Structures are given as C-alpha cells and as structure tokens.
C-alpha cells in the first residue's frame, strides 16, 4: 500500500465524476460533473485497509471524502467502491467502514496531527476510544458517524473556510448553559477549515418529525375525534418544544447580542420575499392567482417600524429537533441550506425560526394526505391538528419569550415566504405535495 497518497489517488479523478452525482450530499443535483480534481490527499491510517483524507474540487465545488484503500474489498463494502487505483487496489467511501471510522476516535484522543489535520477535543473533554462506529443511518446532507452510545461526528461534505457556524453557535450555547443542545466534544480542522464536528450522542432521542407524525397517525386512524381528544395528542410536546426554542433564542441573544433592524432593513427583507416570489411564479402557474395577497402580506412588512434581530437557528423544522428523555434539543446550527456563508451568518428575526417550525407542523399534519384523493373530513382534521399544535408551540414559546403571535404581520410574512419556497421545491421534486404549501397560503391569506 502506498505511502505517497496524492499521486496514488489522482487516477481516481476519472471514476469520481460518475460516482459523485449518485451521493445524497452531492450539491448539483441532476447535473453531470465535468471535471474532478483531487486537491488534497493525506494518509490518516496506514495499512490495509488504509484511510485517506481527501478534498476534491468538482466543477468548482469543494467536497470532503474519506477514502478506504484495500487490495481486497470485503462483501459488505462492495457497494461503497468508487474505483480502482493504478496499483490495482480499490478505493471506497470509508464512512461505510466501521473499523476505519472507529480509529478516528484515537486521533481525537491523541490530539493527533495525522494527515496534516488538527484533531482537537474541546477543552476539558476526554475522548473515550475503542467504541464501535456506525453510520447514523438517516437521510442527511452531510455524513454522520455514531461511536458507541457516546459521540456523533458530522463530516461536512462541503466544508467552507472560516469559522463554522454549527460549531460556534453550539459553543456559545453551551457556554450560556443551554440544556437544549448536544454538547460539542471535538473538531477536526485543516488550516482554517472545519472538516468535522463531534458532539455528545443523544442515544435516547427520537426526531421531532417521528414524534409528531406518530400523533398525526393516531388522529387519522380515528373517524371523528378532534385532535384534542385522541390519545396521541401532541399539544403538550409542542408546548414544551416552543419553550425549548424560546430558551435557545434567549441564550443566543444573551451570548451573541441583539440588534435592531430599522425600516430600511425591513424593506430589504420585503424585497427579498418579493424576489423569491418572482422566481417561484415563473415556475409554478398555480401561484399566480395568489400573487396579490402574497405581495400585500410582504408589503405589510415595509410598514413595520423595525424589529430585533440576533443569531438564530436558521433552518428550524421538526427534523432539526430531538426529543430526549430530558426534553427537547435543537441540532444542526449550520443555518439556511444553499445560502452562502456570509448570508447564513447574518442576524435575523427569531420569528424566522418560529415560522419554520410552524410550517413544519403543517407538513407533519398533512404529509399522510399527500397524493391522496382530497377528503374534506381528513383534511379538516389534519388542519385541526396543525392549528392546535401551532398554537401550543406559540404558547410554549411565550412562557419563555414574547408570544410570537403578537408580531402577526412579520410572522405571517415569514410563513408565507417559506410556503412560497416550499411550493417551488415541491413543484420540482414532489408534485403531489404542492397542495400542502398552497393550502397553507390560502388559509393564511383568507384569515386576514
């Protein structure tokens, strides 16, 4: 096995254009890759299999890849093979290899400089080694590895230089004493770029989405009971979740400050909403007849004197919260997906997060009906579930922060902005689901 990695894997550049587009985390979905260049490759673990760290440039986008190199591919890794190197050995996606991934903990524990990277436990954290590694096994935009019941390491598939928002906000929250995040335990960096982020693994947790949809399932199995009457009522959880999100907002504000956005910024915000609407209108004809009410709702934001802004989660929905035995925890503070780094780091109104969660309740309520023949009774009852839990979330939020419903103009605009984005997304990816955000737009605009 080679000890001079870069030349050895350059030949892989031929296989990668075929392989990359098949990966869930690949950004330019549905597009071909013209050229891939291996920017950096360094040996982390020698032997057979060997573990190699690489950064690629695929048509100008940077990706992180951990490669396993072996002369003989065991059966369970066959599906992970990317291609063959010049020396006849095979290269495969090493995140599928539990043995190789298990070794990463040692690098952290030793504060290693393997591969020219910095493997850095957080101050005061002692990393336990010898834990079994496994992929987290959920759909995600990065790749996370779980170690025993202790840690979860997120390898950023598209690492960006500079401070990493996910890491920084987690650290700030833990310093503020927040109980609503999973404690950071280590990072791995190359020069100024954070490549991976390890946190305490919350093994007793279930995702908010799974928890909420269990309740909806229970409701829809009943013929005529109201959402508050069925056994699986979720309002108590929604209430606690609201309080948890408000607590995170309060901690972020206390740790990183609050500013006031004046009228000019409100107007700029409204412009952004209009621009996103323009883009969606061009794609989805069904939006046209709602254009008037949407524009009116966005324009109303211009009339507002201003609002307070701070660091927020940035991409909050039921898939970004975990119900643990001790309460709700927020994960993944990377911020708005697809937005450039500078954009993500901007301060915003905390109501953005609230709007994201409120939209998510709506999705949870209606997801089982997507693609079904519309059934008035079922739709009404699902909508009742959404209303009940949205209200409970806001009421819970109000026990810690200000009741989000007090800022109705802004909250409504944020929700509609989000729904417009959803219409565009569903139109491209899941046409059956388009009615979900459309109905939300109709409900919100009919109400006022």
């Amino acid at each position, binding site marked *: 096995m080679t000890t001079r990695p870069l030349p050895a894997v350059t030949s892989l550049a031929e296989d990668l254009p075929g392989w990359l587009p098949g990966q869930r985390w690949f950004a330019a979905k549905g597009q071909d890759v013209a050229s891939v260049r291996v920017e950096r490759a360094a040996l982390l673990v020698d032997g057979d299999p060997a573990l190699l760290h690489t950064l690629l440039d695929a048509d100008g986008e940077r990706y992180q890849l951990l490669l396993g190199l072996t002369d003989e591919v065991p059966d369970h890794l066959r599906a992970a093979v990317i291609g063959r190197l010049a020396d006849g050995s095979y290269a495969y996606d090493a995140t599928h290899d539990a043995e190789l991934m298990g070794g990463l903990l040692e690098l952290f524990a030793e504060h290693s400089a393997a591969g020219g990277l910095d493997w850095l436990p957080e101050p005061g954290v002692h990393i336990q080694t010898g834990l079994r590694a496994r992929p987290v096994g*959920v759909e995600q935009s990065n790749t996370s590895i779980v170690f025993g019941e202790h840690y979860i390491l997120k390898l950023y598939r598209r690492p960006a230089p500079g401070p990493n928002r996910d890491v920084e906000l987690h650290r700030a929250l833990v310093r503020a004493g927040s109980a609503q995040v999973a404690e950071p335990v280590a990072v791995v960096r190359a020069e100024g770029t954070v490549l991976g982020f390890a946190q305490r693994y*919350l093994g007793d947790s*279930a995702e908010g989405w*799974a928890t909420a949809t269990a309740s909806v*399932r229970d409701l829809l199995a009943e013929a005529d009971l109201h959402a508050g009457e069925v*056994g699986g*009522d979720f309002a108590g*959880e929604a209430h606690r979740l609201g309080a948890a999100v408000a607590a995170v907002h309060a901690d972020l504000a206390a740790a990183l400050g609050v500013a006031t956005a004046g009228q000019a910024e409100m107007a700029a915000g409204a412009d952004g909403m209009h621009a996103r609407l323009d883009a969606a209108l061009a794609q989805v004809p069904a939006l046209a007849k709602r254009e008037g009410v949407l524009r009116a709702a966005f324009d109303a934001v211009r009339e507002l004197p201003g609002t307070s802004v701070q660091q927020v989660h940035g991409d909050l929905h039921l898939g970004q919260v975990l119900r643990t035995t001790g309460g709700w925890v927020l994960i993944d503070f990377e911020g708005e997906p697809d937005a450039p780094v500078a954009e993500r780091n901007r301060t915003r109104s905390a109501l953005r997060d609230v709007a994201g969660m409120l939209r998510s309740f709506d999705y949870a309520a209606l997801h089982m009906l997507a693609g079904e023949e519309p059934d008035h009774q079922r739709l009404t009852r699902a909508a009742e579930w959404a209303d009940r839990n949205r209200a409970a979330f806001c009421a819970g939020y109000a026990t810690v922060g200000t009741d989000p419903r007090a800022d109705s103009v802004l909250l409504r605009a944020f929700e509609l902005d989000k729904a417009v984005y959803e219409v565009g997304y569903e139109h491209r990816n899941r046409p059956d689901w388009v009615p979900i955000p459309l109905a939300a737009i109709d409900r919100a605009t009919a109400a006022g």
Partner: protein
Amino acid sequence: MTVQDTTAPDAALGLAGIPHTGEAVTADGHLTEPQAEDFHHARSAPPQVDWYKSAVFYEVLVRAFNDSDGNGTGDLRGLADKLDYLQWLGIDCLWLPPFYASPLRDGGYDISDFRAVLPEFGTVDDFSYLLDQAHKRGIRVITDLVLNHTSDAHPWFQESRQHPDGPYGDYYVWSDTDEAYSDARIIFVDTETSNWTYDPVRGQFYWHRFFSHQPDLNYENPAVQDAMLDVLRFWLDIGIDGFRLDAVPYLFEEEGTNCENLPRTHEFLKRCRKVVDDEFPGRVLLAEANQWPADVVEYFGDASIGGDECHMAFHFPLMPRIFMAVRRESRFPISEILAQTPAIPAGAQWGIFLRNHDELTLEMVTDEERDYMYAEYAKDPRMKANIGIRRRLAPLLDNDRNQQELFTALLLSLPGSPVLYYGDEIGMGDNIWLGDRDAVRTPMQWSPDRNAGFSRCDPGRLYLPAIADPVYGFQAVNVEAHMNNTSSLLHWTRRMLQVRTEHPAFGLGDFTELGSSNPSVLAYLRRHGEDVVICVNNLSRFPQPVELHLSEHDGCIPVELTGGVRFPAIGELPYLLTLPGHGFYWFQITRPLEEGEPQ
C-alpha cells in the same frame, strides 16, 4: 361509670370475648393490651435474604376474596382456603390491606385496635393460621400498618380526650387553637376543610392529616414511639413477613414546614428498621409515600450502608405515566420518569403497580397531564375520586386483551417488584355506581355459580354485589372459566410470572433504556451478571418497526422468553424488529453456540 364504657370498644366493635386493647385498665390508668404469647405463632417462611427484590406481590382484600362462613364478607380462613390458587399462579407475597379492628370509616385504615382482628375477618389465631399455611406454600404475607394515626374509636384516643392528665393524655396532637401548622396541605380535599377538629369532650382541637375521625398520633411523645414499636413486634412475633407502612411522611409536625418528610420522621423509621434488623431479620418494611421518587428515596435511608429505613417504597408516578405513554403512543412519559428516578441503596427495591385498591393516583402528574388523564380514562365524572380515577385495569383499557398483556408485561419487566391487584389476572371489571372507592373492591369472581363462588350467602347479604354486567360479570369472567381455557389471560399471566421467576435480571438487574429512532417503542435492557434480558414494547396501536443498537452483543442470539424461539443473531448493523400493535418481546441474550458444543 360511663368513662369506662366508652373506653372499651367491645360494644361497638364486637370484640366482646376476644382479647383486645383496653379489656382492663390498671390502677395507674394504663390499658392492658393483648400479647403475642397469647396466640399461635406461624411456621417461618423459607429463609431467603433479599426475597422482596425479586418477589411478585399480590394485593388482596380479605373482605373481597373468599367467604368461609357464609356471612357475605370474605375472611382470613376463606383466604387461606385459596392459597393453592395463589401458589399455582406464582405469587410470592400477599399484601393485605388492614384487617385490624376498625369502625371501617376508611376501609380499615382507621384502626381502633392494633392488636385485634376485625371480627368479620376472624381472629388473631385465624391470621396466624393463614400465615402458617402461606409459609408452607412458600408465600409470604405483609399487611398495612398505619403509623400516623388511629381511629377516634381507639381506646388510646378515648383515654386521651377524657383524661388529659392520664398516661394517654399526650398520645395525640392537641391544641387550644386551630392555627398551628398552617403550611400543611389538606390531603382529602373532597371531604375535609381543615387539619384541625374541635373535640368537645376535651375542649381542644386535635390534629389530623387525613379524615377528622383519624386523629394523628403524637410522635413527639416517646411513649407513643415505644407503643408503636411494640405493635410491630406483636405481629412480627406471630410471624408476619413485613409491613406496608401507610402514610409515613406525616408522622411529625413542625411549625413553618409542610409537615411532610421531616428529619425526625426519618429518625423514627430508622428505629423501626433497627427492630426488624436486630430482632426479625428477613422481614420487610415498605413505605407508602405518595411523592416524587427523588423524595421517596429518602425513605430508604442511608445509601452508604445499603439503606437503614424502609426496604421498599412504592413508585407512584410511574403508574399514571404508563397509561399516558400508551395513550400518547410515546415512550417519553415513561423514559422521563425513570430517568428522574434516582439510584436506590443496595438493599432497597421499588414496588410498582398498575392498579390497587385506591384510585389511579394522579397527584404525581402536572395539571395539564391530569386533565388529559381524566379525559382519556375517566369519561364519566363518577369515575373520578379525590385526585385520581377509580377503575380497574381491564375497563381502563377498554377490555382490550393486547393492552392488558402489554401493561402487565411492562409491570413485570420495569425496575421494581410488581404488585398485582386481585382480580386483574382474570380481567375483572368495576362498578362505578358503588360509592367511594368500592368500585374496585367487589367480590373476587371464582366461578359462574351464585355470588361468583365467593360466598354461599343470600346475594342480598354480600358486602358488595358481585359484578354482573354482560361484559365483566362473573358469569363470563371468573377463575374457573379462565382455568379451563389455556389461552386465557389467567394462564398467560401465570406463564409470564414463571418466566420472570426464571430470570434474576427482572428483579435484581440494572436497567438501561435502549434508545431508538421510533418514539412509540420503549426498549430496555435488564442485566444481572450473566442474565441479560431485553424488553421491547410497542406503545402504539399500530404495528411498528424498530432498529435497536445492540452491536455490544454482536454474535449473540436473542431467544424469545415465552416461546424459546431463537431469533437471528445480532450483528454489526442495527437489529431490526417489527412489533404488532401493542406488541412486546422479551428476549434473553445468549452467547452463540461454540463449534462442536453439544446441543
């Protein structure tokens, strides 16, 4: 003299001709009391330390189980006649609510003589016979002992109110006003307005945490402490295996406190424990303290020496949360309360239950959760009592067999010694039209014969009518019918108890919750030495998949415990199971067979 007449409870309580407290009064005003030597003593139970940690308890009301003399009320001899049934079922210990002499204004918790048996139930010698027969079958017996108060009919109280300067004058908590201890809450909010009641005989107020006819004993008085320790000794001498100490948090009062869990209350419990340890090793004290586990653990005493107060305590908040979790199809109500439950001393054990003779207590849930529970489980306002729900397990679960099995499986596998409630093993119903908590205290249903086989008496004489509705009535639901059908709930329960007995992990093992991404599945691992058991429960009415992370047991084979079926070996990958609605699995984790190992 009239004073003597009211002191002797003979007339009112039918103790004439039976040894009892206050039969005579000594020259210095002391009441003579029966002594243990006056009665038969039972043979001992098979010696076994820590028996209570893995025992299955069965709560049975003497009044409700079996009537031997045909007077319409169950009795101690009748219960003794049914011990074979309880042995067959696999019960390790009976818990009898109080059978002492009592005016029965609080289900016998209003004790008027600690050293006499309620005549309807029999005599002290009948109790000794029951105990002897139970021990012969390897079954232990504990009973309630109310330390905090007596009935106002107790000769001690009669003496105290009439002779403030006599030897009993200071046995109760007397005051000229009703103002002291105003921070103590009122427990029976439905019936009481104050913890003080004026006694016209003595011209003072007396303190009572429960009903006004139950004056609190004054534990500040060393003579009261000694007298109550002697009550313990009386029954322990006869051979009883322990006591459930009722209402323990309230023994002492102190101004400016809520008068619960005071340090001196704990000091007295340590004295009780010392009597047991020094004089009667192997017997147990079980605390009834309806409080949060973090507070209840105090009643186990000093953890550094394995506990020096009660051996056991009831875990109250777990029970409503089991109901809540299944209704919500979410494991978190259970996970949360178990995570909040502190570790207990080495010598201690929880007692856990689904139902008992009291209502389903809702003191340990938030207001919001209580409203939810009322709405879910007490649809008729008559089903509510105090702060709880008065129903039996089967009707609470809509008589759904799957849920009854799931709940029982949880009871038998969660950490703690399970306490079954008589009749729940055959899915008995309740009668919410009966007053107070009698809804769940109707006669045990033995057969489809007259009076459910409980009594030969004229049906009109029964202490409570047997359940006769079409669904739960004794014609359909009775032990005989269940015995004749091997797929009955009764047979199922018996098999589950057998499985539990075969695996020390259930009683002695530690508890680790196994998380999973499915919030409707509650999975946990119990481990005692080599014995490793995994329990997986689907709290949802719909079938559910679950992936468990068991790679720690890579290569091991899960063997399902009720049928012995070997499941696929555990590997590196998450272990996938599918469970039917309200289904559950118990697995033993066994190491794989070695090559060439004889099979």
